[in-house]
C-alpha cells in the first residue's frame, strides 16, 4: 500500500477544503455576518483542528486501518458497520452535492444550454479515472493542482482591485460580535467535510512518529492557508460588490469580474 508524503497530505487537504469553500463561502458568511463576515472564516475553519488531531491520534493507535475497520474494532461489528454505512452515505452525499454545485455554476454562468448531466458525467469520469489511478496519483494531482488554484484565486483577487467600491468594508464590528459567531457556525460544516475526508484517507497515512508530528502541522497549516485565502476572497467580494450583492450573487462573480478586467472589455 502506498503512503503519501507530508507535503502531499497538506496540499490534498487544502485542495479539498479550498474546492468546497472558495465559491459559496462569501455568500454564506456575509449572509449571516454582514459586512464583518470575512472575520469569521478563519475561526470557523479553526474548529476543525482539534477534530483533525483526533483523527490523527486514531491513525496512531490503529496504524494502516481505514476508518471503517477502526470503528468496527472500537464499537463492535454491528455498530461499526452502521457507522461505516453512515460515513459512506454522508461522503457520497457531500461528493454529489459538490459535483452538482460545480455543474450548476457552470451551467448557469457559462454554458446555459448544455444539459447539466454532461458536466456531471464529465466530472464523474474524471473522478473515476483519478480514483482508479490510485491514491498516489490522487495525492500528486492535488500537489500540482493546488498551487494552480491558489494562483488563480490570487489572480482573481488582484485583477478585481480596480473594481473596489469606496469604503464597503466600513464600519467594522458595528453589529458586535454576535453575527460573527453565527457566521462562524456556518463555516464549521466545511471544516467538518475536511475531517471526513481526513478520516477517509487515514489508511494511507504513514504511521511513523516523525511523520505523525509533521501531519499535525500539516493539518493546521492547510486549515490556516485555506482560511487566509478564503478570508481574502470574502474580503474582496465585499469590497467589490458590497454586502448586499455578495449575498445575492450565486455564481462566481469575482472570477467573472477578474476576467472582464483581465481581458479588458
Amino acid at each position, binding site marked *: 500500500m502506498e503512503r503519501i508524503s507530508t507535503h502531499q497530505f497538506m496540499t490534498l487537504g487544502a485542495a479539498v477544503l479550498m474546492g468546497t469553500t472558495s465559491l459559496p463561502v462569501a455568500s454564506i458568511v456575509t449572509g449571516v455576518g454582514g459586512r464583518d463576515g470575512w472575520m469569521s472564516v478563519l475561526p470557523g475553519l479553526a474548529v476543525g483542528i482539534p477534530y483533525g488531531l483526533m483523527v490523527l491520534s486514531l491513525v496512531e493507535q490503529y496504524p494502516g486501518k481505514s476508518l471503517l475497520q477502526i470503528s468496527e474494532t472500537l464499537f463492535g461489528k454491528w455498530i461499526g458497520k452502521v457507522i461505516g454505512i453512515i460515513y459512506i452515505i454522508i461522503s457520497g452525499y457531500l461528493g454529489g452535492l459538490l459535483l452538482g454545485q460545480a455543474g450548476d455554476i457552470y451551467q448557469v454562468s457559462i454554458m446555459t444550454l448544455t444539459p447539466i448531466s454532461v458536466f456531471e458525467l464529465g466530472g464523474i469520469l474524471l473522478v473515476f479515472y483519478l480514483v482508479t489511478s490510485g491514491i498516489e496519483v490522487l495525492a500528486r494531482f492535488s500537489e500540482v493542482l493546488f498551487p494552480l488554484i491558489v494562483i488563480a484565486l490570487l489572480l482573481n483577487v488582484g485583477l478585481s482591485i480596480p473594481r473596489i467600491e469606496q469604503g464597503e468594508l466600513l464600519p467594522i464590528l458595528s453589529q458586535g460580535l454576535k453575527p460573527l459567531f453565527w457566521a462562524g457556525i456556518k463555516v464549521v460544516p466545511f471544516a467538518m467535510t475536511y475531517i471526513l475526508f481526513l478520516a477517509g484517507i487515514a489508511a494511507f497515512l504513514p504511521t511513523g512518529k516523525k511523520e505523525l508530528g509533521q501531519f499535525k502541522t500539516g493539518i493546521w497549516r492547510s486549515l490556516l492557508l485555506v482560511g487566509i485565502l478564503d478570508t481574502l476572497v470574502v474580503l474582496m467580494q465585499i469590497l467589490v460588490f458590497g454586502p448586499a450583492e455578495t449575498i445575492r450573487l450565486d455564481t462566481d462573480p469575482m472570477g*467573472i469580474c477578474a476576467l*472582464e478586467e483581465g481581458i479588458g472589455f
Partner: protein
Amino acid sequence: MKSNRQLKIGLGVILIICILFLPGCWGKREVEELAPLLGVGIDLGQKPGTYLITEQIAEPKQGGATASEVKQWTVSVEVSSAREAYEMVSKITNLIPFMGSLKVIVIGEDAAKAGFNDIIDFAQRFSEFRRSMYLLLAKGKAQSLLNTKLRSGEIPAIFLKSNLEKGENSSTFPIVRLGHYLTILGTETTAPIIPLAKSIKSGDEGIEYKADEKEGEELQLEGAGVLKGDHLVDFLTDEETKGYMWLENDVLHRFINTVGIDESKVNFGGQVLKSTTIYKVKSNNGTMELHYQINASIAVDEVMGLKEKLSDTEWLDLLKEAEKRFAKVIQKECELSIQKEKKLGLDFLGIGRHIEQYNSGYWKTVKDQWEQNIADFPISLDVKVTIHNSGMSSGSAHD
C-alpha cells in the same frame, strides 16, 4: 487489473460515441451567426406597462476588419419584457442576437422616471451580460439618442462607450457600471446617480458646428440624474455633478478655471493632477457633522489678465492667490451639490454611508429618519489646493 482495463476501454468507447454523436445544440453557435448587440435603449411604450426597447446591433461585413468600420442596424420594439424584445428581434433577423458584447444601456427620461429595474433585471440575471456594462440616462428618448447619426460616422453605442471610458480624464461626470449601480442600490440609503447623455444641436451651449442633415449631429455627456431607487427624480447640472465628483473622491484629472468666481482681473486655468477627499464624522458642540477635506494639486497652465511683469516673489504671491481661487471654485461646486442634496432630500452623496462607516453608533440613532434628516444635517467643507507648477513659463506673454 484485466477487468479494470476492459472497464476503461468501455468508458473510452462511450466517451468517443458521446463526443461524435452529441454535438449539435447545447449552445454551440458560430461567431458569424451572432448579431452582437452594442447598445440598448429603454423607453416607455405607447401602451401602459410596455417598454420601447431599442437595440443597436453591429453587422460585421467581410473586409470591415475593425470595429469602427462596422455597420450598424438599429431597431426598436414595443414589448413588455426584455425576453420578448429578444424574441421580436430574432424574428426580423437571420442572426442570433448576442448580449455578451453589450456595452451601454441607455435609459430614456420617461422610462427612468417610471422606474426601470424590472426591465434591466434581465441584464443582471442572464449569463451573457456583464456587470461591467455602462448605464446612461438620455435626455429625452433613448431611442432618438441611439438613432442619432453622428458626424464622425461612429455608431452611437460605441461612441457613448468610449466617451464614458475616457471620462476619468476630465472627471466631469460619474461613470456608472451596472454592478456599481446594483451595489449602490444594495446600500438602501444612498441614492444612485447615473450620467446623462444628450444630443447637441449646433448653437446649443456654445457649441457650434456645420449643421447638415447628411452630416449628422453630436452627442454630449454632461451632468447626471439622481434616482430614488430606480426612479429618476431630478437632473444635476454640470456644476452640481462636478461637485459630486469632488465629494465622492472620484476626481482623477480635471480641467478647471477661475473665471467668474469673483471680481479679480487675473484668472487662471489648470489641470488637476491629483485629488483626495477625506471624510470625517465629528461632533461639533454636541451635534454631529460630516466634514469633507478635499486636497487637490493643480498644475496651472493658463494665466489670463496679467498686465505687468512680476518679480519672483510677486509671482509666488500670485500663485498663492491662485490656490485660494481654485479652492473657491471647487468649494462652490461642492456647495451647489450639497444644496441640491438637501433640496431633494436624497442622499446621492452617500453621506449616510459615510456616517455609518466612521461612526456606526451614531448612525443607528439617525438611520430611521435619515431622509428627513438630510436637509438639516450639518456638513462642513474644507478645500485645500496646492499649485504644483505653473507650466513652462513664469510670468505672462506680454513681458
